[in-house]
């Protein structure tokens, strides 16, 4: 694990902000799973329960115009980037008020106003496109950065290698954030990846790579601080391997046969969310009342978004002819 001791300590406000993003992810995830179970939503769902710290800490460093490219398992990345929940819910329900008018769905949300530029359903494909967004920022002469989120499995696909190399050669302001939850779909890390740490692969492309405890907000804070500063200062890309665990398996309904009950129970016992909450209070960064109020507000937001999304209309079939090209296809 990386020791990035020269990074400044996060302020109490930042810590609370990271927690706010985490609890927003968790409450929203909980509501989505409940709604699917009740049969009110029909969708493929990939819960990221357990991985909240990673995008929440990353997003604490991002401005609204900094962009992210994420993957079909990445609803937590979008919620962390403060995507509004009403259009999110309408989209996952396939409704016209969705971020994408219901034409992308839960694996493909896009919301440029909050910098969520691409959500790909193809493993590894967030990275080549993130490079282009980062290049545009360079050409604009701006300090914008782009984050490419992906999983440990994606580090074995060609797009990862091509993208890291190009980003290095062109010194692009991009941060490659690998959320290593130990499983590529159902395949255990060591059965599919020929190196003990994905961060070591950075050396092959001439960029810094760090392995970080992705469930520890302080460790994440130090690593993201370093990577974002590098990108904004024109020094190029960084690879962050953030170790974590997914509590709900690969896809909703997964029976987790490929992992042991013990390892899952052990990971859940170390759930970063209550642990972080307890430490925020214990160290005096926040009060019990403050966090309870925050949670209640977020629950109200989620409930409102759920009602809004499920009440929204389905799109007209004319939408099949729209947005194929800029110009509508004649009927």
């Amino acid at each position, binding site marked *: 694990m990386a020791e990035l001791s020269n990074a400044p300590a996060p302020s109490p406000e930042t810590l609370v902000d990271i927690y706010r993003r985490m609890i927003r992810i968790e409450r929203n995830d909980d509501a989505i799973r409940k709604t699917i179970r009740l049969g009110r939503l029909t969708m493929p769902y990939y819960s990221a329960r357990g991985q909240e710290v990673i995008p929440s800490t990353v997003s604490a460093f991002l401005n609204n115009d900094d*962009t992210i*490219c994420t993957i079909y398992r990445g609803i937590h990345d979008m919620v962390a980037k403060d995507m509004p929940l009403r259009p999110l819910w309408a989209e996952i329900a396939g409704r016209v008020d*969705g*971020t*994408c*008018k*219901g*034409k*992308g769905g839960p694996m*493909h949300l*896009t*919301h*440029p106003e909050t910098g969520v*530029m*691409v959500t*790909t*359903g*193809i493993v590894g*494909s967030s*990275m*080549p*496109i*993130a*490079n*282009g*967004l*980062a*290049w*545009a*920022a*360079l*050409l*604009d002469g701006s300090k914008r950065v*782009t984050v490419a989120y992906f999983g440990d499995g994606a580090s074995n696909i*060609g*797009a990862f290698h*091509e*993208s890291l*190399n*190009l980003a290095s*050669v*062109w010194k692009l302001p991009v941060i490659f954030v690998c959320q290593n939850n130990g499983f590529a779909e159902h395949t255990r890390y060591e059965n599919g990846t020929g190196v003990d740490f994905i961060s070591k692969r950075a050396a092959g492309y001439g960029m810094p790579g760090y392995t970080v405890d992705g469930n520890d907000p302080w460790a994440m804070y130090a690593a993201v601080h370093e990577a974002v500063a590098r990108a904004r200062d024109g020094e190029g890309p960084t690879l962050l391997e953030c170790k974590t665990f997914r509590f709900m398996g690969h896809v909703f309904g997964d029976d987790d046969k490929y992992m042991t009950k013990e390892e899952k129970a052990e990971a859940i016992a170390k759930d970063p969310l209550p642990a972080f909450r307890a430490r925020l209070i214990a160290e005096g960064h926040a009060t019990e009342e403050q966090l309870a109020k925050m949670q209640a507000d977020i629950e109200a937001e989620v409930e409102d978004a759920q009602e809004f999304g499920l009440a929204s209309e389905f799109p007209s079939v004319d939408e099949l002819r*729209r*947005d*194929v*090209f*800029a110009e509508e296809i004649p009927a």
Partner: protein
Amino acid sequence: MSGKKMNALQAVNAALAKAMEQDPKVIVFGEDVADREGGGVTGATAGLSTRFGDDRVKSTPISEQAIIGAAIGAALGGYKPVAEIMLMNFTTVAMDMIFNHAAKLRFMSGGQSQVPITIRTLTGAGWQTAGQHADHLEGWFAHTAGIKVVAPSNPAEYYGLLLSCIQDPDPCIFIESAGTLFIPGEVPDDQAPIPLGKARVVQEGTDVTIVSWSSQLVRCQQALPALAEAGISVELVDLRTVSPWDKEAVLASAAKTGRVLIAHEAVRSFGPGAEIAATVNEELYGKLKAPVRRLGAPYSPVPFSKPLEDAYIVSPERVAEAVKGLMA
């Protein structure tokens, strides 16, 4: 009206320069395209990096996925990227980026994302480059909703269609085909962008309509004198844009002549000719004087050996023969 005589590659170069001059958001990149690397393997981008700077004209590693991914991302960031994929067979390495992303992001984002990229790519049989450097894959791309497929056949078209591709708000594949590259032609100084999706009637006629594009169009033109000599009045339609194709122009010509031949360099089986033939049959059933015919490459990879390669390409003689067959 004055103009310049040039070949297709010079026309590409001139169009890129014009587009970059007019719009600072136009950027050009691909393997070896900058002057440090020789200005492109065909010289199509020669001089551009010197003139417009290394930021806007960049050579890339040999990484086709990364090239198209960078094009898509830069487009989402407000630029108009012109990415070169050296040879059309190499687009296969980037198919995820082209097919799953460039073509679909507008639709899948509900119209929020625009991907105005142009992918220039070289191909075509005739140079003995064999099965992995010469395929005409327009049918692949035409089968993907969300991509425009453009296939010019002469320098003025290269110039005018490339300008349109670059300005177009959607992704375009621009095919530069071996059989068209070195035939000089006049490009008017004020050559305007040529609208996408619009065919051109190369020669008017009343007996038979030939629909073709790219290198095969050139070989169809070469068949015209023999057909004129045989007393057959041929209407030759240069489709120019394979997708979306100009149905109106093709159907108007087919309705006039009642006989249609579609000729392309792409493999005949499941090729674009089948789509056009089926549409002509659906729209003009009962009005045709002969069944629609198709010519294309055999169901075979492009071969190396010269006699095999010659047989692979649909010659002007075979075009003439097919037209005569339609008249029989």
